[in-house]
C-alpha cells in the first residue's frame, strides 16, 4: 500500500504539494497552541480533518474508489467549522443569532442536495455562500465595534480574508460543477478549474497560517 501511495504521489506531485500546504497551518497552529483562542482551535481541528480527508481521498484514488462524497461531506464540515469559529468569536447577540440562522439554513438545505457519486454543486456552493456571508458579518462586527487595535495582528482577520478569497474564488466553479468538474468534461478543463480551486485553498492555508502566527498578539490587541 505504501509503495502504491508513493507512486501515486510521484505521479500527481500536485496532491503531495497540497498535503504539504495543509501541514503549514497545522504546524504553526500546534506551535502557537498556547496562544490560540477557542475559535482558532476549531480552525486547527478543521485543518487536521482536511489532512485526514486528503489522505483518505488519495487512498481511495489508488484503489479506484469514488472519493467525491468526501468533498461533499466536507461541505458540511466547512459550514459547521465556520459556524463554530465565528459564533465563539462574536459577542454581539444579534450577530450571533444571524450566524446561527445562516449555519442552520445552510446545513439544512445542504442535506437535500446530497450526492455520494459526484461533486454536489449545491452543498459546495452553499458552503461557499455561508463562508462569504459569515466573513462579511464578522468584518461588519470588526468595523462597528472598533475593539481591535491593530487589525493586521488580529488572527481572525487573516482567517476571514483567506476564507472570503477561497469562497469567492471557488463559488462559480462549484456552482457550475457539472460543467467544469464532472466526469463528462474534458480532462484539461477539469484540471484547470481543479487547479484554480487548489490555488484558492493554498491562499486560504497561507492566510490561516498568518492568522495562527499573529494569534500570540490577540490578547493584547483589544482596546
Amino acid at each position, binding site marked *: 500500500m505504501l509503495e502504491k501511495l508513493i507512486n501515486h504521489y510521484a505521479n500527481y506531485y500536485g496532491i503531495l504539494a497540497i498535503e504539504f500546504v495543509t501541514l503549514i497551518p497545522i504546524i504553526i497552529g500546534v506551535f502557537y497552541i498556547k496562544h490560540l483562542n477557542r475559535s482558532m482551535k476549531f480552525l486547527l481541528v478543521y485543518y487536521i480533518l482536511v489532512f485526514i480527508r486528503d489522505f483518505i481521498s488519495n487512498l481511495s484514488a489508488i484503489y479506484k474508489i469514488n472519493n467525491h462524497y468526501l468533498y461533499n461531506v466536507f461541505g458540511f464540515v466547512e459550514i459547521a467549522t465556520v459556524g463554530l469559529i465565528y459564533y465563539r468569536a462574536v459577542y454581539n447577540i444579534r450577530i450571533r443569532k444571524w450566524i446561527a440562522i445562516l449555519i442552520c439554513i445552510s446545513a439544512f438545505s445542504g442535506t437535500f442536495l446530497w450526492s455520494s457519486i459526484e461533486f454536489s454543486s449545491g452543498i459546495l456552493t452553499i458552503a461557499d455562500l455561508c463562508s462569504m456571508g459569515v466573513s462579511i458579518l464578522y468584518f461588519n462586527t*470588526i468595523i462597528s465595534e472598533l475593539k481591535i*487595535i*491593530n*487589525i493586521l495582528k488580529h488572527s481572525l482577520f487573516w482567517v476571514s480574508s483567506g476564507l472570503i478569497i477561497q469562497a469567492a474564488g471557488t463559488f462559480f466553479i462549484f456552482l457550475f460543477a457539472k460543467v467544469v468538474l464532472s466526469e463528462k468534461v474534458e480532462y484539461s478543463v477539469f484540471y484547470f478549474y481543479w487547479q484554480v480551486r487548489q490555488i484558492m485553498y493554498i491562499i486560504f492555508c497561507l492566510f490561516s497560517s498568518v492568522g495562527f502566527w499573529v494569534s500570540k498578539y490577540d490578547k493584547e490587541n483589544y482596546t
Partner: protein
Amino acid sequence: MKLYIAVGTAVLLVMAIFIIVFVAYYQQKQIRQQLILKEWQEKYRKGLLAATLQAQEHERRRIAQDLHDEIGTMLSVTKLSLNQLGRTVEHNDPGSTVLVQKTRSLLDETIANVRRISRDLVPTTLERFGLVSALEELAEKASNGEVHVELSCSDKMPTLLPQLDLTLFRIAQELINNAIKHANAENIIIDLHCQPNGILLSVIDDGRGFDLDEILKDKKRGLGLRNIESRLNVIDGHVTFDVEEGRGSRIHIQVKNLKPEVEVEVETV
C-alpha cells in the same frame, strides 16, 4: 460558459480583495481616531481631577488661614479680655475666680485645637522642610501609647516636585489613618525609597487587614482608597494592595520622579 465562469470568478475575487482592503483601511482609520479621542478624554479627565485636587488644597488652605488668622486671633483677644476680667474679679468677687480659671483653661484648649486643625489642614512642614520631615512629623504625631509608627527611608532622597511631595504625603496620611481607625494596627511602618525609575512608598501595618474587592464593590465604602487611586492617576503613579483579612496590609505606591503635565500650586500659609 467556461469563460463566464472564469470572468465571474475573477470579478468575485476582485470584490473580495476590495472588501478585505477596505475593512483593513477603514478599521485602522476609525480606531486611530477613537484612540486619539480616548487620549483626549483621558487628558481632560486627568486635568479635571488635578483641578479638583488643586481646588481641594486651596479650600483647605483658605479654611486653615481663616482658622489661624480670624478665629485664632479672636480667641487670643478673648483670652486677653478674660485675663483682664479675671484680675478685676479676683479683687471684687473672689468666688468667681475658679469659674474664670476654668473658662481660661477651656479657652486654652480651644486655641490649641484650632492650631492643630489649622496645621493638619495644611502640611507646613512639608512645604518648608520636604517630604521626609513631614512624614517624620506624621509618624511622631500618630504614635502614642497604643500605636507605634516608624519611618524608614533612603539616606539620599532626591528633591521631589511639590505636587509629588503633597500627593505622597496625603496618601501616607490616609493610609496611616485607615490603619489606626479601621484596622486597629499597633505597628505601622512607612517605607520611603528612591528607585532608579521613581519613588516607592510603602505603608505596612499589622492590623486586621481588609477584603479589597468587597470594599471596592461597596460604593459607600473605600472612599479613601478611591481617593488614593485618583491622586495617583494625576501623576501617572500606581498602587498595589497586598491585603488580606486577618493578615495586616502592605500597600505600595510607585510614582515616577518626572515632571508631570499638570502641576498643582503650593502656597504657604
